[in-house]
């Protein structure tokens, strides 16, 4: 197909041709074309089928407001549905297909839906598919969804990359039409940091589409000059192909820059970047969007907005028709007729709804006080019918119902637009987002000279506000074109369906029906009819719809009001919001210093918070994780095992009042802890519930090192910093996290001392007497590397933890393993760690679950009465401290072959009807104990400490299990603590 409708075009490069396909048909266009302009140039009027009725639809607009011309671009995984052809930049090899039809676009099998239209009005689905209820999900909804809708997803992962970014400026100018360019030039000349963002690939706004002059030259030439001036300024950044889609708090704007959508491939670079722009001031120069008029069959391909017709003629050199009629209620529509005439296109008629118009166009038929009641043409317009019955042949109809200022961003923080009678449109009103002002057509200044002036003045006001001196260079000169309007919304005499919202197939009748059925608020109208929904958010439809609602209700338009505008202004792909956060990069991960070594050892890793920890180390011949874990436990208990415990939080505490500070944090006393000793401590929340535990070592007179649980490391630090800065600012105490600074390894088992003797330098005596249980010291290892040694035990064995500066951690694990070889030392992971702590009866996260108090944990007596601490008073609340309350105990299955499950609840043996009232508590942790040869558990049992030896039931209706268990001491292993003191 040749470009039969190409008639010139000033802003395309006709010296080069681009090939593209539409529904597989090869076509040609030029650099500078949009897909829409190229389709029109090739005479392709029919481009899609409508959402609900499958009506033939054509290109309606020339911008981001497009309701009809939604197409799928590209193929395979890169296929993108619902792309507006009017903003898709043409490139060589572009593949586009139309949407929402079964069979070919020209012969859509679902077009028959349109014949059912009398039955499918507003609310049809709600009323019809109510019964039987179960049919909705299984039958009705899938059937409706497959017949109505927009494009289809590829159902493959998005192959493109996306990125985020942050920009800062003094002045953000949104939109690069005449007002925006004036504002940006003013900002640039004043020396401010300016960002000028424009959604088009060619900034200039309506200047590119009009024939108006500035400073005696064509407006688009002035735009080019202004852009060249801006491009030469270091302090100005022009972002074309960038839509500012939302205005957020504190002068923050969201913007989407389409980096490579105009290229055949993105070359490994992000396709789109989602910017967060921090702007001291913003000038909204978003222009205005034209709206249509509701009349019979006004949705045929060939019926277009009048301003869009001008844009295709002037900017792209495309005649949307051979013989074009104009239907307008304002002066601006006339310029379409004059521009068409100037371009040599036949003007069939100008129909002006106003009776008092004196404008004329030589040789063209003019109908004043006229209206169009119907159109004809199966796949595209070929005739219009006037209210007086006259029929006029035309293959394109340019309609102008007036212009709506693009107030959207002014409403993102609940600003409510106000109505202006003189332009018959809403303008920004109420409270604008702080720092935002509006200039040009977006504020209702719909003419050129006014837009240029406002852009400059508004920017200058903002700049002076920021302390800049405005440039004195004169404003460009232009004239204000005629822009009179008399509102005219709906040709009431038309008996045919008159479309209001083309994208959602909402007609004037639907709007009236909504009102008649009681959905009278605009917000209800929107939800009942879907007016203003979907990708275009009713940019061409909203005001028309509510004007018709106002007429039906006998109210004024401002009384009827508008729906709320929310971000985004135009669609933003989910991929752009996600940015880089996908797959492995969804969030950062933390590695311990022995990670590389553990990987070499074939460790299986588990995510704990953001950490990757070795869970177990499988050895050849082991058939499952239990084999590995059992071996790790047995080897540790029989000889020595090593575990990386770097992930535990470490907080360095220094200051004259550090001891007093710890006294106030922990339930137990720390004031008397001597240098070189470690103590276990329990922390409460303010409400008295236990929330973290760990050990704190006193390394010096004013120096302590606290350990926290892995999961709570950040929370505990934050709470301590709060206590330090806000609760007790008078204390001399200083905190800093050293979690990442030290590689720490637990060395546990009867041979742990023997192993460490080979590593710790000989100058340090670590014998039983010199370095007893709960001792700590700063030592050196392996010939002088500084280290910290703690004799603490989570496993219940003779055990130590040894810490070296993090970057020595890799060397340290290798040294420990080498030194341990003669003892058969093995590494153990978090599973074995967990088994051993359950065997020893140590509480962990499962027990400190945010519901349990020190009394429940059996640590009630640890709470010092000689001092106060956070949560102390609240922990004495009756329910938390009652003598017959929950107590942490051990549980052993009566049948040793039975496997226990965490989460089971306890009930009495003879309980015939288990209920909340008869609930005795719950199982919090379970493990298979290789040391005992059966399953064991820790749990909370009411009065558990007084019921040793009792048999109760672990009742688990979720898993359908009911197991008899004996209440035993939580210390399954070495209850007297002889091993750890060995």
């Amino acid at each position: 197909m040749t470009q039969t409708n190409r008639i010139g075009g000033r802003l395309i490069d006709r010296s080069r041709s681009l090939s593209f396909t539409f529904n597989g048909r090869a076509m040609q266009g030029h650099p500078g074309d949009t897909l829409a302009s190229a389709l029109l140039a090739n005479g392709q009027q029919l481009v899609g089928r409508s959402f609900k009725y499958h009506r033939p639809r054509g290109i309606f607009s020339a911008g981001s407001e497009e309701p009809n011309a939604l197409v799928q671009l590209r193929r395979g995984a890169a296929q993108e549905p619902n792309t507006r052809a009017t903003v898709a930049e043409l490139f060589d090899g572009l593949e586009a297909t139309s949407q929402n039809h079964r069979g070919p676009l020209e012969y859509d099998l679902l077009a028959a839906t349109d014949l059912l239209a009398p039955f499918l009005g507003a609310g049809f689905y709600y009323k019809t598919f109510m019964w039987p209820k179960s049919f909705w999900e299984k039958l009705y909804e899938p059937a409706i969804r497959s017949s109505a809708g927009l494009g289809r997803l590829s159902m493959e992962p998005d192959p493109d990359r996306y990125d985020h970014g942050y920009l800062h400026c003094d002045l953000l100018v949104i939109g690069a039409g005449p007002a925006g360019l004036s504002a940006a030039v003013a900002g640039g000349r004043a020396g401010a940091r300016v960002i000028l963002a424009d959604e088009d690939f060619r900034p200039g706004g309506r200047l590119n589409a009009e024939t108006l002059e500035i400073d005696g030259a064509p407006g688009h030439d002035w735009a080019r000059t202004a852009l060249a001036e801006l491009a030469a300024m270091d302090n100005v950044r022009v972002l074309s192909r960038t839509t500012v889609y939302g205005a957020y708090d504190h002068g923050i704007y969201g913007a989407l820059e389409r980096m490579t959508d105009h290229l055949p491939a993105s070359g490994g670079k992000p396709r789109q970047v989602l910017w967060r722009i921090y702007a001291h001031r913003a000038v909204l120069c978003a222009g205005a969007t034209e709206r249509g008029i509701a009349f019979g069959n006004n949705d045929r391909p060939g019926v277009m907005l009048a301003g869009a017709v001008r844009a295709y003629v002037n900017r792209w050199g495309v005649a949307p028709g051979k013989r074009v009629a104009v239907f307008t209620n304002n002066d601006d529509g006339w310029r379409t007729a004059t521009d068409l005439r100037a371009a040599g296109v036949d003007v069939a008629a100008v129909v002006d709804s106003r009776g008092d118009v004196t404008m004329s166009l030589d040789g063209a038929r003019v109908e004043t006080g006229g209206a169009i009641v119907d159109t004809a043409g199966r796949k595209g317009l070929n005739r219009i019918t006037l209210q007086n019955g006259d029929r006029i042949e035309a293959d394109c109809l340019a309609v102008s119902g007036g212009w709506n200022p693009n107030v959207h961003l002014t409403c993102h923080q609940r600003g409510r637009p106000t109505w202006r009678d003189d332009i018959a449109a809403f303008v920004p009103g109420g409270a604008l987002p702080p720092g935002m002002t509006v200039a040009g057509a977006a504020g209702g200044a719909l003419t050129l000279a006014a837009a240029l002036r406002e852009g400059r003045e508004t920017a200058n006001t903002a700049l002076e506000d920021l302390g800049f001196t405005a440039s004195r260079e004169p404003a460009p000169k232009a004239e204000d074109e005629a822009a009179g309007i008399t509102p005219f919304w709906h040709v009431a005499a038309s008996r045919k369906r008159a479309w209001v919202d083309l994208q959602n197939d909402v007609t004037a009748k639907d709007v009236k029906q909504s009102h008649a059925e009681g959905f009278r608020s605009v917000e209800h109208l929107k939800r009942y009819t879907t007016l203003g929904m979907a990708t275009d958010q009713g940019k061409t439809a909203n005001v028309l719809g509510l004007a018709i609602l106002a007429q039906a209700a006998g109210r004024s338009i401002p009384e009827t009001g508008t729906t709320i505008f929310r971000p985004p202004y135009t669609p933003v792909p989910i991929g752009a919001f996600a940015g880089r956060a996908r797959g492995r990069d969804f969030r950062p991960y933390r590695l311990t210093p022995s990670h590389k070594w553990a990987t070499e050892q074939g460790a299986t890793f588990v995510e704990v918070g953001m950490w990757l920890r070795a869970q177990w180390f499988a050895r050849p011949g082991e058939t499952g994780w239990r084999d590995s874990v059992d071996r790790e436990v047995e080897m540790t208990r029989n000889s020595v095992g090593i575990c990386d415990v770097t992930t535990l939080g470490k907080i360095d505490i220094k200051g004259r009042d550090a001891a007093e500070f710890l006294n106030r944090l922990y339930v137990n006393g720390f004031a008397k802890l001597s240098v070189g000793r470690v103590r276990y401590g329990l922390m409460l929340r303010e409400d008295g519930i236990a929330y973290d535990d760990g050990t704190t070592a006193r390394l010096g007179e004013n120096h302590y090192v606290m350990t926290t649980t892995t999961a709570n490391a950040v929370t505990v630090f934050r709470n301590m910093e709060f206590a330090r800065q806000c609760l007790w600012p008078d204390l001399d105490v200083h905190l800093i996290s050293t979690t990442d600074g030290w590689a720490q390894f637990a060395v546990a088992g009867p041979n742990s001392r023997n192993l460490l003797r080979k590593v710790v330098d000989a100058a340090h005596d670590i014998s039983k007497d010199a370095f007893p249980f709960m001792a700590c010291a700063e030592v050196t290892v392996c010939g002088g590397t500084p280290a910290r040694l703690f004799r603490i035990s989570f496993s219940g064995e003779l055990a130590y933890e040894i810490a070296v500066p993090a970057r020595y951690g890799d060397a340290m694990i290798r040294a420990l393993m080498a030194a341990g070889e003669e003892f058969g030392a093995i590494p153990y992971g978090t599973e074995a760690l967990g088994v051993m702590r359950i065997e020893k009866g140590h509480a962990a996260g499962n027990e400190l679950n945010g519901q349990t108090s020190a009394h429940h944990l059996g640590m009630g007596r640890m709470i010092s009465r000689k001092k106060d601490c956070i949560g102390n008073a609240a922990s004495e609340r009756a329910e938390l401290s009652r003598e017959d309350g929950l107590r942490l105990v051990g549980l052993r299955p009566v049948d040793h072959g039975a496997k226990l499950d965490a989460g089971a609840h306890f009930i009495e043996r003879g309980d015939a009807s288990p209920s909340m009232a008869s609930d005795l508590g719950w199982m919090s942790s379970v493990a298979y104990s290789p040391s005992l040869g059966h399953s064991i558990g820790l749990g909370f049992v009411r009065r558990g400490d007084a019921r040793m030896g009792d048999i109760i039931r672990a009742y688990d209706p979720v898993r359908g299990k009911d197991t008899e268990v004996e209440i035993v001491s939580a210390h399954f292993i070495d209850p007297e603590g002889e091993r750890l003191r060995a």
Partner: protein
Amino acid sequence: MPDLTLTPTPPLDGYAQDFAGTRLAEASELAIVAVATPAGGETALEAAVKAAYGTGTPAPGASILSKDGKARLVWSGPDQMFLLFTHDAPDAEAGVAAALGQAGYCTDQTGVWAALEISGPGVRGALERLCPLDLHPDAFAEGAAARTVMEHMGAFVIRTGSDAFLLLSASSSAKSFLHAVELSVRNTA
């Protein structure tokens, strides 16, 4: 007994790479010591710092070079600063503590952080994809220092030259941090 001398491994294994317009390199021998000001000890610490480093303590948002240019003092929080200097032995804290006498509480932070130098004409363009701070020279001049969050990771950003920054982020997540910075460079190169 086998020879068990320990050899340090910096968190990014001494990474260094040149991209078009940007160089990325780990400052693998950078020692970091936090110095906290004892309550009521502001004057004494100021004097000790002056004596040891020939400069005052840094104001919020700033860093200062010592008189000999070998150490950088970075404001890191209320009553706290970081001293950064090249030193490859694990005894940085002792050195600073000795230099300051009892005037400040010192804590070694060397292993807590991974230090990444990023420099070249493309550096601001790359950091735009990552760093929420305004790094325009008018807003973030040479010597400026700030703490922020990049790709969920806490970080220090210190401007060491017109086109050069030092980034510090947690050593445990250093590989994720490097990936984030590298990707920003690649995306903008």
